[in-house]
């Protein structure tokens, strides 16, 4: 891998990290769950951080163009940034402002930037899988070699749509890369305790979807593996699955202290920080430091923009519902 490429991957990760750190701060007190109680917060509702998982979207999305599509999960900030969205408009959305990507209608769990092919985060586990399947049909109808990248967690492989969507994609040889971000936790439950067999890749293979397993904290390995699989897909080889093993550094949502995890094991896991691992390999401390500074600066500007941004007007609650019967809000 050349230096420029390596630095670009690092930059994507640094930008995601900076975003997540800022969002985390802004969300304290934003939701009453996991024993936390509600107080004033700039980011309201459940906020799912991808801190520590940055290598997966960075490595995968480096192979995607703006005309490729992506579906995401509840933990979607990393995917959104890696696909090319602007952090300031994302932060505005998290702050619920009119200038957010969704005009304040979606927030973190539904963050989307269709202009870069990011078809939305989703609050329902595994719900993005069938949507990705349909989007791939549309790409094929259009012609060309575009693909859909479909991200989901290790918990999602126990929901029906995982089976249905993979089978369907294989039957129709659709251009999809399924990406299982296996952070080994599903909310407060260790996934291994509720997942039989060898996991995402083994299941995929049995459903006719080949793929690869990779260290999801090694951005170069992710980049390599995703590149190979995407090349096969673009050549008409049908769907592939990338099973990326990573680790959820934070709690399930930002207010979750995750006290249910083993402290010693947690300490070991977080040593494998993907940014640290990449930095060791890149070995250009000054440049990396500059990238980090830039990323933090970008997010500081995003925060400032979000603070200053206007709230949506109440009447915006009534737009983009449906055209037929619009105006009939109470009968």
């Amino acid at each position, binding site marked *: 891998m050349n230096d420029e490429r390596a630095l670009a991957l690092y930059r994507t990760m640094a930008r995601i990290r900076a975003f997540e750190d800022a969002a985390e701060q802004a969300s304290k007190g934003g939701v009453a769950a996991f024993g936390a109680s509600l107080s004033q917060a700039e980011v309201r509702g459940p906020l799912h951080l991808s801190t520590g998982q940055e290598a997966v979207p960075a490595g995968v999305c480096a192979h995607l163009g703006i005309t490729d599509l992506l579906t995401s999960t509840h933990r979607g900030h990393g995917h959104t940034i890696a696909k090319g969205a602007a952090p300031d408009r994302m932060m505005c959305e998290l702050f619920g402002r009119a200038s957010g990507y969704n005009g304040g209608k*979606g927030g973190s769990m539904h963050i*989307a930037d269709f202009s870069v092919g990011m078809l939305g985060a989703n609050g329902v586990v595994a719900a993005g899988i069938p949507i990705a399947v349909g989007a791939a049909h549309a790409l094929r109808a259009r012609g060309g070699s575009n693909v859909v990248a479909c991200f989901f967690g290790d918990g999602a492989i126990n929901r029906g749509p995982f089976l249905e969507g993979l089978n369907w994609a294989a039957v129709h040889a659709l251009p999809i890369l399924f990406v299982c971000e296996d952070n080994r936790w599903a909310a407060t439950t260790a996934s291994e305790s509720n997942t039989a067999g060898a996991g995402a890749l083994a299941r995929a293979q049995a459903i006719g979807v080949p793929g690869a397993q990779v260290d999801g904290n090694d951005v170069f390995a992710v980049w390599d593996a995703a590149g190979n699989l995407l090349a096969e897909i673009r050549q008409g080889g049908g769907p592939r699955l990338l099973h990326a093993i990573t680790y959820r550094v934070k709690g399930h949502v930002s207010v979750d202290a995750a006290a249910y995890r083993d402290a010693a094991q947690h300490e070991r896991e977080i040593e494998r920080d993907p940014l640290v691992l990449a930095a060791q390999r890149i070995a250009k401390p000054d440049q990396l430091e500059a990238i980090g500074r830039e990323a933090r600066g970008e997010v500081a500007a995003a925060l400032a923009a979000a603070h200053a941004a206007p709230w949506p007007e109440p009447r915006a609650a009534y737009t983009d*519902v*449906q055209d037929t019967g619009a105006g009939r809000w109470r*009968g």
Partner: protein
Amino acid sequence: MNYAQAGCSALEAAMRSDASVVVLGEDVGRGGIFGQYHGLQQAFGEQRVIDTPISESTILGAAVGMALAGLRPVVEMRVVDFALCAIDELVNQAAKARYMFGGQGRVGMVARLPNGLWSGSAAQHSQSLEAWFAHIPGLVVVAPATPQDNHGLLRAALACGDPVVYLEHKELWGLQGEVEPAQLARLGEAEIARPGRDVTVVTWSRTRHTALQAAALAEKQGVSLEVIDLRTIWPWDRDAVLASAARTGRVLITHEAVQVAGFGAEIAATLAEETDARVRRLGAPRVPVGYSQPLEDESRITPQGIAAACVELRHARPAHR
């Protein structure tokens, strides 16, 4: 032309004029088990008339993805009862995607969910769920009763660009009728199937025909029924119903769905809020549909039942103003 063919011809016309229209569902390649897709795969190929696995969640979810990425899918669910396997995709995804994403994408699609009683098919194949879909923001809900409407409304549903829950009736496939393809239908517009003076009967789907039979029975007892076929459940034609209620002062709402929390309740509630009309409802009892004929019959709306309710309503104490 029968009701199934009328839908098929509407779809065929739409597919000819708009290359983004695609069909997906189980058995559609062999024309659908009621013939409502007859010949379409031969005409348009396997990429536009897509045979799917038995994967309801993915049939409906894929349609959402297709729509967001620029296609206009028509989804076949065989019966509304099986669509219960795809409710997350319909309600949490299709209905809300445009809104949640702040208008960045929209889900123009038609989901065909044949509704109503299906003779001898028992509890899991006989439900009428229009009230559920009317309750969900984002959805349009259509229930054609005639071949003409199944043609015209299907075309209108495809054209509107919203997610439409399209409720053909499970027992109307063979119904014959004239179809004038050029006659446009407008969503949200009721039809006065029969004008009358004494009692307004508001209904839709198969019960339109039952109500028309009831009108003949009531006529013999000196009661004149005005039968309004809503055709679109959401948005329903308030103006037409309120205007008729103002003329007759008495309204019976009747539907095949369970009466409790059925869509008739919404209409009756609106009438209570806005008029002094006397209102009554006649829906199915709140019991699952039984298999055996005498049990199933308890869930059926009959011409006699409607006529009796209307005659009683005619003689009910008049409303005061």
